[in-house]
């Protein structure tokens, strides 16, 4: 009682299945990212911002330190789009130069925290057992530390230099990365293709490097992006409290700090508005990009 030849039905079905083209993970992720218009806009803003901060002062040609009592305390105008301060210094160029500091600190801090986080997480995940436990207890302790206070403390005690600030921020940002990396290691360690690689004879270290790490990096990338936003806010807060960069170095937060009397008592709103706005726009853009990245790189959403 065999059924008639399968022929026509089966062929048509296989045809449909084969029509979807294969795509690599990265181009797929980029496609997903592109659909997120806000993330794209955020990326654009960040690119513009970086360009402005790096090239702007050169193009403008104004000296951020140039004192000009004739033009002091002026509001925004064509000559000084962001106004001037009590020394007559052009605020726009100070903003751009200050931006260099803020962005540099944030990037450096995130970089350091990722390196530390990856090392700790990879070690914990791969070694397992006592080492893993000890390191995770350490992570717990760091999570429970009152971060802002200790950052303030470190900067006060060790002096407010670029390196100190970077380290102070990084000290409280590495834990998340460590946990993510460890989690990836733990889940991927047992996967079949690792077993397969092992049976062929690939050494443990190479396995860690070439097979596990790339997969572990995806959540880390998202975390790092959002980490930049946090780093900017912490550095700005620090500088605002007068504990971060000292004059003549002026990050956006420091500019805000120096503008307090001018804004509150003299009504020179532009002194406070622009630096804060820069922080806000940067952080917002980074958040949008991070959001877009999270959607794009989340493997569970690939079927959408």
């Amino acid at each position, binding site marked *: 009682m065999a059924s008639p030849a399968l022929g026509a039905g089966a062929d048509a079905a296989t045809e449909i299945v084969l029509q979807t083209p294969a795509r690599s993970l990265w181009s797929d992720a980029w496609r997903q990212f592109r659909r997120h218009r806000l993330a794209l806009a955020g990326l654009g803003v960040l690119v513009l911002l970086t360009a402005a901060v790096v090239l702007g002062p050169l193009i403008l040609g104004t000296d951020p330190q140039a004192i000009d009592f004739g033009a002091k305390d002026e509001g925004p105008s064509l000559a000084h789009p962001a106004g001037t301060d009590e020394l007559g210094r052009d605020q726009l160029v100070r903003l751009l130069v200050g931006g260099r500091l803020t962005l540099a600190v944030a990037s450096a801090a995130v970089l350091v925290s990722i390196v530390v986080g990856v090392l700790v997480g990879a070690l914990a995940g791969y070694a397992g057992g006592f080492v893993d436990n000890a390191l995770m207890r350490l992570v717990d*302790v*760091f999570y429970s530390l009152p971060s802002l206070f200790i950052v*303030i403390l470190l900067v006060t005690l060790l002096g407010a230099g670029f390196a100190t600030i970077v380290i102070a921020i990084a000290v409280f940002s590495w834990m998340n990365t460590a946990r993510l990396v460890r989690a990836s290691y733990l889940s991927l360690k047992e996967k079949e293709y690792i077993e397969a690689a092992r049976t062929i004879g690939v050494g443990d270290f190479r396995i860690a490097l070439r097979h596990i790490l790339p997969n572990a990096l995806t959540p880390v990338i998202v975390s790092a992006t959002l980490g930049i936003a946090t780093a900017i806010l912490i550095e700005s807060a620090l500088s605002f409290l007068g504990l971060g960069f000292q004059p003549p170095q002026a990050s956006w937060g420091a500019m805000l700090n120096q503008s307090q009397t001018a804004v509150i008592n003299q*009504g020179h709103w532009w002194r406070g508005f622009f630096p*804060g706005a820069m*922080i806000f726009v940067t952080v917002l853009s980074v958040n949008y990009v991070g959001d877009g990245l999270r959607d794009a790189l989340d493997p569970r959403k690939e079927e959408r």
Partner: protein
Amino acid sequence: MGTYVIRRSLQAIPLLIGISIVIFLMLQMTPGGPLASSEAGGGRATAERTERLREEFGLDDPLPVQYVNWAGGIVTGDWGTSYNTGRPVLGTILDRLPTTLLLTGLAFVIALAIALPVGILAATRQYSVFDYVSSGVSFVGVAIPSFWFGLMLLYLFSFRLGWLPSSGLEDLRMQHVGPAALWDRASHLIMPVAVLSLIATAQLTRYVRGSMLEVLHEDYVRTARGSGLPERSVIVRHAFRNAAIPVVTIAVLMVPELFLGAVITESIFAISGMGRLFIESADLRDYPVLLGILTIAAVLVVLANLLADLLYGLLDPRISYG
């Protein structure tokens, strides 16, 4: 459930010990050790006086001994004396603590009062204008630096409009009774509390909305609807009852963050709370006070975590009736 409570509480103790060790060690990290600045920067201290101070505060003892002495003191209530004022540390801190607690408490209440209704409404009316607007606003809200917000508020309401005072907690010329005094207090608190609660409100709103959305798609909500129950019942008794569980834990964990964030608020509005005390003491290298404040902050964080865990266990029947 009982064992769960005991187990989690016991776990907190080694954590506290670990934290106290880290804190203690960090303070030893200054180049030259404690009292270094009073020697170096042309301070009033002579080498002699410093030596005497060192003896008095036991700074020449080996570190572990110092640690045990200090930790033991904390537990028994002797928090040491301030290098700066000579007054007991505990007393100094307790002077300032209520202010910070007031700010933190008010900010927390405001954050909840706004985030809960807005988040729930946004989730139940997903894709509506209200949802888009509130989600957009809360996303933007977490990116606003609180000090910038404070500064702009001060410009607008203090300088420009003159409606609200720019600093402190009360007008010292005022009498302390009567409705005028009440408004005086309130007007001094409005902006600081608004600034402190800004980010917490934005974050909490997003969490509430997210949690509700997840729950609203669960099968049991469909079952409740399918049984013909009124929508309000479905949303409150079925959806929110479950969505609240992670939200409560997040909310509890926000309290220590608010407490720390008060540093900035106190700085802008010149309020004498613990945050300001911390910065002043850091500047003066007043170690006993610093250690004291850090201890309180750390205890707060650990307690909040513990409370969050316990609440979670309490609210989730799978754990409490396990």
